[in-house]
Every structure is written in structure tokens, then in C-alpha cells.
């Protein structure tokens, strides 16, 4: 067992595959000697050189497009967008090209690429640098979407993301890069589509993603003292999704809270809620409850941002409500 930060774990995952396969390469803005805006690629340029760790101009369209084209022709590129918010600039290449190629061409072309997407708020980066846009991605058939919440998961999922034959969107929470956690000495890939029970419980299921997993655990610890046993499930990959793990848990607890950092309207949390109500309606003893950000852009002022983003207190309150 060793300690690693979330950022280091992502780096280690990339590094392991780069050592094994010379067709794995990294490109993006300032990912080279500078080490990336959040320092995630630090050291990789020195280790692998400028052929494999490349700075690109500020051109998100061609960053994603170059990943698609090179993935279709034998490479396993990892493209980094500095912030998930800049997806907008490269969205055609992702949605109409990367996601469609396999299907449209009847399985003739594979696009094994990873796009790293730092998302989330909490650092006063304001409306254009703080969004949680995972639902845009899960909406598109052809894309896989990963969102680790711990260093261990980040490492294992990065390995699988690189190994995957399809475009994998690797969402990272920028406020977690410095968060330390245990990582097993024996490193194994974590299969996409396998969730993780972060805390076992019997009274309420909380399905949480990304940084909200930690808020859920905090709320669960407090609720335990009040005699409420919370099961915290982290799906880890939003697509493919470990539905069975969620359904099994709800069958046991009969109550569910869904917590994501997205704005509520049109969120992936909404998709989860719909899915659960379709599959588990007759098992539920209380209405499904969602905990999300308010339906606003993310404001700059720290007190406003705090207010808009969901937290452990919101999860605590939601659990109390479904238990009432």
C-alpha cells in the first residue's frame, strides 16, 4: 500500500501504459515541460520526450480531432483539455466524429482515445471554468464516461480507459488533484462499468459521483451516529453504468438519494432517477431524492459559489427526508 494524490494516480496510470505501449501518447495545451495547468502531466515530458508528450496550440477543435484521427489510424492518444468547459470548442469532433465512427461505418473503424476533462467547482474559477458537464457526454451513444473519486480508482480506471477500444471521456474533479489516498501495490485495471460500494449500509442508498462521494461519506458518518445506516455507491463510470449494483442496494434499503455536482436540470442524476424509478418503483418506500447544484451558472464570489454547489449537509438533509 502506498499514498498517492488523485493527480499523481492519473499520471501514474498514463505512465504505466506509456511504458508498455509506444503508441500511447499525450497532447494538449501546456502538457509538456510546463506539466499541465494542474500539474498532472508533470515529469512525463522529461521521461518520454516531445514526441510522446506534446504541447498543442490553443485549438480544442483540432486537439480532439487529432485524437480522433490518430486513434482511427493506430495510436492510443490521451488528449487533455485544460478545463471540461472547453469541450464546447471541440464538440463537433467529439459528438459527430469520435462517437459516431464505429457505428456509422458499420464497425470498420475503432477510435481508442481518452479525453481528460478537469471539471467541477469550488475554486472561485467562475462560470466558464467550473462546470460539471458529464450529462452532455453520457447523452451521446458512442462515448464512454468515467469519473473517479479516489486515487485508487483514478489509476485503475485510467488503465482501462487507455485499453478501451472506444472514446473514453475521463472526467476529473479539479479540487481533488491534491487529495491523498491509499493505492494498492499491485496495480490492476478497474473494468469500466463496475461500481464500488464506498460504504456499506442498510437504511438508505446514496449514489454519488466524483467529489460528492466524499460529501456522501461525510454525511453517512454523521448519520450513523443518529442510527441511520447509509450505503454509499460510487458508479465510477457513468457509461457503461453498473445498474445492478444500484438496483441491488435499493432492493435492500428501499430508499435512495442521488448526489452529483451538476446543475439539476437535465443532469445525469436525472437519468439515474428515471432509471431507478423504472426498475425499482415497487421497491421504493420514499420518493427518490436528488442533491445537485442549483440551476444557475457557477458564480465567482466564494460565498455564492458555496451556496450554489451541493455539499454534505444537503446530502444529510436529503437522507433525513427520505427516512421521514
Amino acid at each position: 500500500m502506498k499514498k498517492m494524490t488523485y493527480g499523481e494516480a492519473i499520471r501514474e496510470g498514463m505512465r504505466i501504459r506509456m511504458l508498455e505501449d509506444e503508441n500511447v501518447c499525450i497532447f494538449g495545451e501546456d502538457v509538456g515541460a510546463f506539466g499541465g495547468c494542474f500539474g498532472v502531466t508533470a515529469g512525463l515530458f522529461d521521461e518520454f520526450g516531445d514526441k510522446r508528450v506534446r504541447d498543442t496550440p490553443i485549438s480544442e477543435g483540432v486537439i480532439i480531432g487529432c485524437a480522433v484521427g490518430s486513434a482511427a489510424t493506430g495510436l492510443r492518444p490521451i488528449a487533455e483539455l485544460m478545463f471540461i468547459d472547453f469541450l464546447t470548442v471541440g464538440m463537433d469532433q467529439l459528438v459527430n466524429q469520435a462517437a459516431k465512427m464505429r457505428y456509422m461505418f458499420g464497425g470498420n473503424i475503432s477510435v481508442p482515445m481518452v479525453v481528460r476533462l478537469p471539471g467541477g467547482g469550488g475554486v472561485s474559477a467562475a462560470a466558464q471554468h467550473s462546470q460539471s458537464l458529464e450529462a452532455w457526454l453520457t447523452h451521446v451513444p458512442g462515448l464512454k464516461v468515467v469519473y473517479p473519486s479516489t486515487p485508487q480508482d483514478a489509476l485503475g480506471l485510467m488503465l482501462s480507459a487507455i485499453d478501451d477500444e472506444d472514446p473514453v471521456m475521463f472526467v476529473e474533479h479539479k479540487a481533488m488533484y491534491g487529495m491523498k489516498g491509499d493505492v494498492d501495490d499491485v496495480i490492476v485495471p478497474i473494468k469500466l462499468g463496475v461500481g464500488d460500494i464506498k460504504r456499506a449500509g442498510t437504511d438508505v442508498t446514496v449514489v454519488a459521483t466524483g467529489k460528492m462521494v466524499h460529501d456522501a461519506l461525510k454525511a453517512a458518518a454523521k448519520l450513523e451516529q443518529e442510527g441511520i445506516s447509509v450505503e454509499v455507491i460510487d458508479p465510477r463510470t457513468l457509461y457503461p453504468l453498473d445498474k445492478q449494483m444500484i438496483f441491488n442496494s435499493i432492493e435492500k434499503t428501499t430508499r435512495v438519494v442521488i448526489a452529483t455536482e451538476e446543475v439539476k436540470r437535465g443532469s445525469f442524476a436525472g437519468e439515474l432517477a428515471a432509471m431507478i424509478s423504472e426498475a425499482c418503483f415497487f421497491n421504493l418506500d420514499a420518493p427518490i431524492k436528488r442533491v445537485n447544484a442549483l440551476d444557475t451558472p457557477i458564480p465567482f464570489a466564494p460565498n455564492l459559489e458555496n451556496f450554489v454547489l451541493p455539499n454534505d449537509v444537503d446530502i444529510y438533509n436529503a437522507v433525513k427526508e427520505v427516512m421521514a
Partner: protein
Amino acid sequence: MKLDKAIIKDMYIRMKRIREFETKAMNLFAEGAIPGFVHLYLGEEAVATGVCQALNDADYITSTHRGHGHIIAKGGDLKYMMAELYGKETGYCKGKGGSMHIADATKGILGANGIVGAGHNLAVGAGFSAQYRGTDQVCVCFFGDASTNQGTFHESMNLASIWKLPVIFVCENNGYGISMSQARHQAIKDIADRGTAYGIPGISVDGNDVIAVHEAAVEAVKRARNGQGPTLIECKTYRQRGHFEGDAGKYKPTEEQEMWMKKDPMPRIEKYMRDSDLFTAEELADLQDSVVKEIAEAIEFANASAYPELSSAVKDIYFDIVEEVRSR
């Protein structure tokens, strides 16, 4: 061009305001008074100033993540700006925007922008609107060297050109996009050359010489107001600080930094003012004192202001809809 004393004085005040504002913002950020990201304009004061001096209040500008200088030069209120950097309710955007998102519609300031390359297209829209409405307004689009690698730069130049829109594209070539030097992010030296591809006149000027910048801007504004279409002005300048506060800028060679510090636009204009005999040393010192006082007042204003009411978080999303608030 022989410039009036009044114009030079005006330009000096704008430049000094930017220098003083940015120097104070730098310190306040280090002290933790300003949250988030702060991209300073130190060293580039002559560009925004020389250009905005050629504009009227009714003209428009689009800006970038490095927007403080543009906004000050276009006449933005220092108190509201500083309060916004602090995230206070008295700020330009009621604390919702911060350093990277300051706008003032009354001054034609269409917003600092967190998305590199977004301003190009907005400027075309503002130019189209002015042409359509038959006014003589123009729009200046400020942007960095590295943003000229976004598709938006090329699309907007092309459209502005074929529609002969009153847009002035002002490139602040400070030699870097974060850690990427210009030589590494594009294979040309003069961004002005890119005008040729779109049939737009492109010129390169010394961006640390406020008078040279101003002359080029006056000419471009005249063309735009006369219906002769867009101009591309490349201002060669230098970012004296890191990309944002907190970036040590290790990728900038020492000799390069020293060379550019010698070309610092502030001492240059001050020397010009003294040498031209238009200003006495006393006059200059008075101007400096008054600006220092203005900035101190802006900081006081920001300090004395309150953080926004939480209920404001759900306002201003739509004109007529206020979103619900969860109970906590």
C-alpha cells in the same frame, strides 16, 4: 503624428491607472484578498491605452481573460472593478463574474472572457450590429497571440472582411500562450501576415510605444468608420508577470525578460513627456499622485463593500425567471 498635450496626458493617466491597479491587484492576490484566477496586464499597458484613446464611449470592445487593462483604458470604473475582483456585491457583476468576467454595457465593454478565442466572434457580431443599425460605431477586438490558433480567429476575420464590418482586430502579441512561446505555437513571426489570407490590411507595431499604437489605431478606426472594413493590428509586447498570479513563468528566459524590461512602456512614455517639454516634472508627479489616490480609493471601496446576499445567486439567469433555492 504630432499629438496634443491633452491626448498625451489622457493616455498617460490611463496607462498609469492600469499599472497601479495591476500592481495593487498583484499584492492583494498574494495576500489572499482576491480569490480565483488573476491574469495581469503589467507590461502591456500601451496597447489597450493607445487603442482605446482612439475610441468613443459608444464604441465597443471585446476582451480576454487578461482584461483589466482593456476595461480601464475604455473608461471602466476602478471602484466597481476592484470590488468585482474581491467578489463583492458592489462589483461590476455583483460578485458573480470576478476578474475574468467584467463587463460594462454603458461603456461598450462587452466583457472580459474566460474562453480563448470567443471574443473574435462577438466582435464580428457587434460590428455587424453597428453596420446594420447605420451608426458610426466600431468594435475593437483585443486578443492574444495564442488565440490566433483558434478557428474563431479565422472565421471572424473572414466574415468581417467580406461584410466590410467596422471591426479592428488588435492582437496583443506578448510572445506566449501560457508556457508556449510564439515560435512553438505558430510558424509565423508576424501575426499581421494573417490579414493577407482574408484581404485585411495587417500591420505590426511596437506595442510598448503608446504613440505608435495610437497612430495605428486612429488609422484603423478611420477606415472602419468610413465603411472600408476591418484592420488587423499586431502589437508586439511582453507579459512581465507569469500567465496568472501563481505561475512563476520559468519558461521565460532571463535575457528575454531583461531585454523587455528595458522596453517597459511606463518609463518610455514618462521620458517622452519630459523630453518633449510638454510636461514639467511636477505636473508628471501630480498625475501620478492622483492615480495612486484613485486606486487606493478603489481598494477602500472594495474592502468596505459586503459580499453578495445569497439570494442573489439565483437572480440574473433570465430576465423574468428566478430559480428555486434548496433549503439547507
